[in-house]
């Protein structure tokens, strides 16, 4: 187990270097950001040259990348154009997005798995068909539609919640955005659980468990659900990374100043330290989440062992 984890950690190093270089290269390919700092006015050449030199933009790409990596290894993620340290931006943004992701994931797990379990157990009945139908509708609605509609209905029309989230972004204000963010994945989790449950309910070990005379709730939770959760856990694991980085739309709609907001600003202003820094952290989140999922398999299914 320990050796497996170490091996996986070592595998992360090339992935980390490769992904940072790719992102760095792509932001670089967008062109020189300095001219845009001057708006519709022609940049003053002397001032622009000074700014370029400060940002290390006058060096060739490979030198810029080495310079950037050397900085990163000493814990310096560079600065955004407004003079803020990127680490400072991260300290502001990641806790907010983490809270949002947490709300979304919890919602997915609780509602998604419950719905999936219920409809899986009642396969072919009216509950099952309506859950299937509803999830189909939910999957086909893009986030920006559900986001704006729910925001308008709950925020303006019925005044139940505030349409936007305050800078502090406490959990209570993140409920609606979290639900919006979770909706699509929620539908997937429901359908995945349902199929898995339906399949496993005909398995031999389940018949054995029933024949042993175990109480029904024990059969369902200990034997059926636990074994059916493996594909669901895989999905949720990768979803954590996707939700943290892919919340750009939801964060814009509800004015949440999280990771998506900072990434969007960084891309718009072509500030490579911001974009590369945030994406680097997201890459690490992805890798760690995947590792955790793999380790969780062993917990859910004792037959799986890591050497």
């Amino acid at each position: 187990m320990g050796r497996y984890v170490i091996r996986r950690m070592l595998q992360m190093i090339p992935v980390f270097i490769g992904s940072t270089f790719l992102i760095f290269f792509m932001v670089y390919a967008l062109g020189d950001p300095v001219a845009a700092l001057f708006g519709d006015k022609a940049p003053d050449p002397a001032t622009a040259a000074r700014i370029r030199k400060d940002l290390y933009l006058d060096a060739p790409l490979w030198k810029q990348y080495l310079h950037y990596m050397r900085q990163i290894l000493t814990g310096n993620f560079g600065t955004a154009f407004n003079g803020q340290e990127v680490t400072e931006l991260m300290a502001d943004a990641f806790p907010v997005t983490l809270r949002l992701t947490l709300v979304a994931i919890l919602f997915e797990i609780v509602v998604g798995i419950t719905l999936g379990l219920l409809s899986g157990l009642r396969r072919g009945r009216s509950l099952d068909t309506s859950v299937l139908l509803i999830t189909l509708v939910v999957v086909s609605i893009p986030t920006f539609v559900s986001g704006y509609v729910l925001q308008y209905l709950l925020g303006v029309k019925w005044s139940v919640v505030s349409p936007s989230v305050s800078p502090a972004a406490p959990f209570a204000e993140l409920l609606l955005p979290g639900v919006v963010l979770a909706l699509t994945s929620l539908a997937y989790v429901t359908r995945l659980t349902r199929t898995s449950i339906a399949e496993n309910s005909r398995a031999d070990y389940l018949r054995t468990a029933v024949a042993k005379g175990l109480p029904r709730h024990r059969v369902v939770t200990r034997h059926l659900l636990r074994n059916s959760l493996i594909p669901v856990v895989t999905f949720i694991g990768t979803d954590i990374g996707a939700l943290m980085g892919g919340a750009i739309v939801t964060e814009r709609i509800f004015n949440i100043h999280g990771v998506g907001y900072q990434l969007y600003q960084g891309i718009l202003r072509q500030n490579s330290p911001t974009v590369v820094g945030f994406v680097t952290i997201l890459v690490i989140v992805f890798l760690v989440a995947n590792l955790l999922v793999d380790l969780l398999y062993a917990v859910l299914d004792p037959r799986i062992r890591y050497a």
Partner: protein
Amino acid sequence: MPGPMPGRMRGTAALVACATGVALPALAGCGGGGAGNTAGVVRASWGDPQGPLEPANTNEVQGGKVLSMIFRGLKQYDPRTGEAQNMLAEKIDSADQQTFTITVKDGWMFSNGEKVTAKSFVDAWNYAARVENKQKNASFFQDIQGYDKVHPASGSASAKTMSGLVVKDERTFTVTLRTQFSTWPDTLGYAAYAPLPRAFFDDHANWIKKPVGNGPYMIDSYAKGSAMRLSRWDGYPGDDKAKNAGVELRVYTDNNTAYTDLQAGNLDIVDDIPSAQLKNVKNDLGDRYLNQPAGIIQTLVFPMYDANWSRPGKEKVRRGLSMAVNRDEITQQIYQKTRTPATDWTSPVLGEKGGYKAGLCGDACTYDPGRARKLIEEGGGLPGGKVTITSNVDTGSHRVWMDAVCNSINNALGNDKACTVSPVGTFADFRNQVSDQRMTSMFRSGWQMDYPLVQNFLQPLYYTGASSNYGKFSDAQFDRLVDEANAESDTEKAVGKFQDAEKILADQMPAIPLWYQNGSAGYSENIGGVELNPFSVPVYERITVK
């Protein structure tokens, strides 16, 4: 620098910003903004300013909003007429339109108690001009004598101060310009010319965290990227004291969300109505919706550095293309009248007296497909048989009007392939292509005035070699008329000369004027007295809270 305190959240950051403010010799402390709805405070939408809030380094509207609240310069533009009026200047005299003697009014202070003197201005301007300070508005000081010494085109500066700036006594200083420029004093309302307190130079890092100025408001707290709280400065010596207790600026990434917040009563004023809501805004807000001209004009510039466009006779093609654009229909259909068809190269905010002249462009800006086709044929047709319109499309819904203009040209010429759109992904990329003179056909140019002067709409854009003359238009007579206008001490005569110069643009058509852009804003029932100034920024100090 490795962040020594990771994991700090927003609330704490705001507190810390407050604490450093107390460490400065501030008169009023950090009592102000606490909870969300403080009584008498205006909650306004904001965008994250691109850079630090130094006056000479801020060239966009969002940072400009803050500067308009915490700074007052020698002149101030009247929000309604755009006229430059004395603010801190007691008088500005000149015998030769080149050397100006400026007297600063007595009794003005910065909000930290420091007196505003002649030196506050001279130090600030020298700082702004010096090349090593990398101020984005440095070129505003290029007219002052000695600028080339502190801001050489290459290499390092050979002087620390501009020889054209001399402090005479505590309240007087003289400014010597390189050339005559009669309306120069009227440019001094621009934020880059604001005075700066010693704290700016002595403790720059802390000043940046919480700027201190001499305007009607003081900054209470500034959490970068999310919000700024300002409160009224009760000791403000000017006549334009704030009529509300303070302003809370909230950063919105999406103007749709700001609009929704306004509808929900969570926000008092938005100054950017999303284009998707333009159809509903009158129903939603009634008379709480403002739509008025701002000092912005959109044009299509021809690359005059390309012989295909600058050859004699091609002015007919350029004029013809201008006639092929149905400005009325496009501004009506796409912009719901938040743009006004342009008939000259300035802006209605200047007023008749200031040099705006409706219809100066004449026939050349009137839609006439028949004559357009004829003129283009007489001029030898479109170069290569077609034109393209190039612009960035990441912001400002440019793609929509570009398509519309192209359609209008195609319809007029009866040729579906005459005009095509050439979109560029990002603003920075577009900017670089334009600066590198890589354009081969028409490209977009939006101009937001720096100060409400007709000079600002003409000289920087069309004078030979001027900083923002992207099409490299050059006309000796135009240059001569602008020089004469600048040397003219009588404003009315100067404006006349500028308009004569503008008529050359109508003949030569180096840039097609498309439309004047309006500023729009909506506000809640909670507040009143809302006005937009000619820069389409709300006049925050005049807003009253019910």
